[in-house]
């Protein structure tokens, strides 16, 4: 147990110290900063495919940003990088003033746990677990004791108006409710950003609007939201749209 603690402490110190080295690069209030991000896939025979070729942008704390682009534009790759599911071939990425490019697998897992709340198109809930247990998962992996965990998970479910459904399994919930469970799960560990990948893709337009309204509410409450989509209508809910095409940022516009 103490070894486990030492490892976690060591990892945290390492992550913290990496932030110390590069502190001054992103300015205050900037939560995401990428600088010349490249993602290159080797397809063999010296053929290289550039999914991203030099992407640089900043997102400030409390912003509501949509990353938009057609399929194949590289927006999914970008989302994976922002979500710390993958690392860039070249370039740097700061998240919450920490340099997270070039971290190891386990360190990335730690960042994902603490800093990022995912909302997926297909909800990605554990089908055999109750809504409450699904929401508890990020807290489990941050090692929070059961009592505190339960309180936090219930609190998060209350925020998405699902307090009365917390003991239902995902297959007993409607699509909209499932996505709200997923949003509660994304919120529960107080992440720096909420990263939503086509959150309304599997919902009818009415339910989709409800979910978008929920995102707006979370935005109003001060959360930073990054929305990845290919739909204009959905992107229009955001207050800033970053258009991606062929692995580059095509346009970065503010919507009011």
């Amino acid at each position, binding site marked *: *147990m103490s070894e*486990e*603690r030492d490892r*976690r*402490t060591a990892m*945290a110190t390492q*992550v*913290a110290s990496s*932030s*110390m080295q590069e*502190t001054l690069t992103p300015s*205050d*209030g900037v939560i995401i900063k990428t600088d010349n991000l490249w993602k290159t896939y080797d397809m063999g025979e010296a053929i290289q495919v550039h999914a991203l070729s030099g992407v640089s942008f900043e997102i400030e704390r409390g912003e509501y940003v949509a990353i938009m682009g057609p399929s194949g534009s590289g927006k999914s790759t970008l989302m*994976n990088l922002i*979500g710390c*599911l*993958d690392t860039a071939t070249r370039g740097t990425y700061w998240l*919450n*003033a*920490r340099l997270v490019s070039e971290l190891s*697998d*386990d360190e990335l*897992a*730690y960042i*994902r*746990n*603490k800093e990022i709340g*995912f909302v*997926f198109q297909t909800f*990605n*809930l*554990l089908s*055999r*677990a109750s809504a409450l247990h699904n929401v508890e*998962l*990020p807290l*489990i*992996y*941050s*090692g*929070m*004791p*059961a009592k*505190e*965990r339960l309180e936090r998970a219930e609190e998060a479910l209350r925020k998405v108006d699902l307090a009365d459904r917390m003991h239902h399994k995902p297959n007993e919930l409607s699509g909209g409710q499932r996505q709200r469970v997923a949003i509660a*799960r994304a919120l529960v*560990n107080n992440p720096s950003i909420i990263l939503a990948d086509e959150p309304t893709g599997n919902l009818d337009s009415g339910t989709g609007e409800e979910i978008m309204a929920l995102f707006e509410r979370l935005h109003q409450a001060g959360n930073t939201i990054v929305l990845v989509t290919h739909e204009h209508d959905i992107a229009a809910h955001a207050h800033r749209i970053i258009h991606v095409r062929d692995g580059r940022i095509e346009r970065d516009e503010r919507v009011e």
Partner: protein
Amino acid sequence: MASLSQTASLLLRLAARRRTGAGAWVTAREAFWIALEALRAHKLRSILTLLGVVIATTTLIAVMSIINGMNLYIADHIANLGANVFIVHQWKWAQGYEAWLKARRRNKPVRIEEFEFLRESLKGYKSIGASAGLHNSDTQARYQGHTLYDVGVSGVTPNMIDIGQQKVESGRYITEADYQHESMVCFVGRDLVDDFFPSVDPLNKEILVNGIPFRVIGVAQKIGSTFGESQDNFAQIPLTTFRKFYSPRPSLAVSVQAWNARQMLVLEDEVRALLRARRHIPYREDDTFGINASETIMDTWNMLMGTIFTVTIGIVAVFMVVGGIVIMNIMLASVTERTHEIGIRKSLGARRRDILMQFVIESSVMAGIGGGIGVLLAFLVSRIVDYFFTSTVPLSAVLVGLFLSTAVGLFFGIYPASKAAKLDPIEALRTEN
């Protein structure tokens, strides 16, 4: 400055976790939850998977129980010759079948002259007695139309009551006077009393032992039954009477009692030397008789059981390996089946070691439960065996069984678990199930 405060806040968060001391325990508990959930969700598959481990554990514990039961029996009934007593007989007891066959061919019975010779020549013993049994004949005892078969009829010297482990319940044992006068008296076991005299005093009643009338002078304390055979079905008569009516030159078991354990070893050596000299056994040749003492009986017995045990260990090891491979196979299938789930968990911050632990714990819990089922089955088997034969489940066997099965699950779970832990989160999330 912002970064400093963030570092500080991070350290604060860590400090909070250190205080609660959770960490690994929290994720381990989650892993247990998942393991039990997976078992519950796939009951039939789990049971089939665990069959190998269950059989291995049952076999191990059942065999250990039977050996343990026989050990207890031997220690209690065969090796327990009495305090500082050893017995000179035609052959060694509790030896291997081959050795026994050889001894049967080659050894000569201990005769009455040899008993008398030892009684005169040996020095310093506490007492020396002899007994002879009726062999290879269907013995029976009768009383007023009741007949008991397979009665152990033996002729004894009067001091056998002090040397052996028998106790007088009522009446008296055979006396020196009975011995000298070749009296027609007998000292009987509980079974004869229960059968012939359920409500009357058995003393001074006359019973027929193989057609010859004997007066009952005493009853022995109940011994009980072992190996499913009653130990109280016997009648003892004076050795002199026995020789007169049943067998003039019986094969004797001569019991020598020493004053203490050290003297016993000296006496054993002396008896061996005396008998070898009397029988003219050439130097370098084996004894043509056997000296049986508690320790030597236990030693030979344990050696025999050791062989059986080694064979069992081999069989159990094969079962366990087969069971382990089946578990590994199912765990590999389970990892493939749950790739998407692994992706979800990784996206939420599960590290490699969290996933590794999840699957290792799952296979250990599964195998451990298999071991538990095996233990229960072994208890059942032991009860059944004990009914016919003898078997006592030792605690050590239960612990070994549970530990071994869990260890097998752990070992064979490592490979599938490491496969799961190494999955790429993006690939895993993309996998549909």
